[in-house]
């Protein structure tokens, strides 16, 4: 990034002497920055610090904060089998989303990058699920997945297959994987879009040269295109990971974490504890743990994968 403009007036400043212009400049900076800073402080920083504070108390949401329990809430959360299951479910979704969406997104992006009729329309359509809100997508899928009367079971029935008795979302063994499939449908547009953008920045000459050397389409993709998409893929995987850790809306609409907690995520756990049971201390501890996990994963990922990209970009 270019260094910002230095206005000419700075030249008249001498160290050790605060001129009227200096004061004026400070006032201007304050004037411009303070609305954002106040808003950000009040609605982001204060609540995050409150979550940390709340996590140290056994508090039911009313009256002054008392009943300091130190790390007691953390101990209860970490030993809670529902929360442990929630961490496992969340991690399954983090990993599963990447393993499903990366190859699928890559394949579709490579396909859409070929010159073909209706390409623009195709790109628009593929991105439609991403634009819908999770709630609307969730409500539609909830209806499609209804046992027996849903479209999915009816389609399966027409080829002689049968869905689970309790329905895809009512069966402990299927519910999480069903949610994963719906998430793939909902979010696949993003990797496709990002990969397409990455593909456009690859010069045509590379492909032409490979083609003249007699490489097949697939060889060109494997040896040239896919490696050059590396940075885009790593950035997308990072975003996907952070997003999966925050998963709430879709689960809440489809299953509310059930059946038998089989689809509980870290966020549905903490919302359930906080709002439905009034265990604010437990909710606070769970959100701090979620934040620490997210931060640790983000930093680790950044160290392992993204640093190489920034270094290469800087060369």
């Amino acid at each position: 990034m270019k260094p910002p403009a230095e206005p000419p007036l700075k030249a008249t400043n001498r160290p050790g002497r605060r001129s009227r212009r200096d004061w004026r400049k400070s006032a201007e900076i304050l004037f411009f920055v303070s609305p954002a800073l106040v808003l950000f402080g009040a609605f982001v920083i204060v609540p995050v610090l409150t979550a940390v504070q709340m996590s140290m108390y056994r508090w039911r949401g009313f009256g002054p904060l008392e009943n300091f329990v130190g790390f007691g809430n953390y101990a209860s959360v970490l030993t809670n089998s529902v929360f442990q299951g929630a961490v496992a479910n969340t991690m399954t979704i983090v990993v599963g989303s990447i393993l499903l969406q990366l190859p699928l997104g890559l394949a579709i992006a490579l396909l859409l990058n070929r010159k073909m009729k209706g390409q623009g329309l195709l790109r628009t359509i593929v991105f439609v699920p991403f634009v819908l809100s999770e709630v609307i997508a969730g409500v539609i899928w909830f209806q499609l997945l209804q046992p027996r009367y849903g479209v999915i079971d009816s389609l399966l029935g027409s080829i002689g297959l049968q869905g689970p008795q309790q329905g895809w979302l009512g069966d402990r063994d299927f519910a999480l994987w069903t949610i994963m499939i719906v998430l793939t449908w909902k979010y696949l547009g993003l990797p496709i879009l990002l990969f397409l953008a990455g593909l456009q920045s690859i010069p045509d000459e590379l492909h032409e040269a490979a083609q003249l050397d007699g490489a097949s389409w697939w060889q060109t993709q494997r040896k040239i295109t896919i490696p050059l998409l590396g940075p885009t893929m790593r950035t997308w995987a990072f975003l996907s990971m952070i997003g999966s850790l925050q998963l709430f809306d879709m689960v809440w609409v489809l299953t509310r974490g059930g059946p038998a907690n089989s689809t509980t995520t870290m966020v549905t756990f903490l919302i359930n504890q906080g709002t439905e049971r009034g265990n604010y201390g437990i909710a606070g501890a769970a959100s701090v743990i979620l934040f620490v996990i997210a931060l640790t994963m983000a930093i680790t990922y950044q160290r392992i994968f993204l640093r190489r990209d920034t270094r290469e970009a800087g060369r």
Partner: protein
Amino acid sequence: MTTPTVLAPPAEPTPEPKRSRWNAYSGGHPLVYVVALVIVAVSIGPVLIAVLGGFRTNAQLAQDPGGWPDPWVLFNYRDAITNPAFWRFTGNSLAIGIITTVVVVVFGMMAAYPLARYRFRGREALFTVFVAGLLFPATVAAIPLFILVSQNMGLSNTWWGIALPQAAFALPLSVVILRPFIAALPNELEDAAWVDGASRIGFFWRIVVPLSWPAMVTVGVVAFVGSWNAYLLPLLLLQGDTRTLPLGVADYSSEYSADIAGVFAFTSLAMLPALVLFLVLQKRIVGGLQGAVKG
């Protein structure tokens, strides 16, 4: 990041060096079209089933869930359109979305300007504070926000009570998008404005704001769509008449779960505004997302 053009028309077809392999590079292989059709069907199939389902009766849906409307019935959509709750939810979503967007764009521009074009001590530290906000997801702060807004500020069930926190959480991304954009405006502009006697506030108002429209539209659209689709905070903070469209859809769906055709009609109408906005501002949304990824 100025004008990302993902959906730009494909480059002119390069002349084929040799037609040895049948269309291997140029696409057009029949199989490619078959796969493309499958992708299209999977992507919008569920959406179309919902839209068409609204034109059917529950009896039709029960008999053949994936069928075609026969005969087409209009009363599901008529009921949804004449449902006053639908318009109240839409009005709330619209109002909250507009407040969020205006606050994000105005405050974001104001904050990004000195961060981009003033030199002062603590500037990078200040920027880091905003960037760190990217790491604080709204979910972590959801419960304290709920308490803060409802008990301490008395803003539950108000548009501002939702719009302000949403704007606060959208600010980091806006500052990250706007700062490099404003910094990239040529210095000569500032020098010229200075010679003409403009103050730095005058420069901001007369030069920076008009020239930053593309970045402001990107930031605004991303903020608006985020607000329009938001579920968690509205779920915690809004009851009754102040609820937004996603809450309305979720409520309607669980309240009238037996009336599947009605739910399909209600949901289809609810997704219409976001879809239209997307189709109109497609390039901006796409550009905003890519800008956000590339930083």
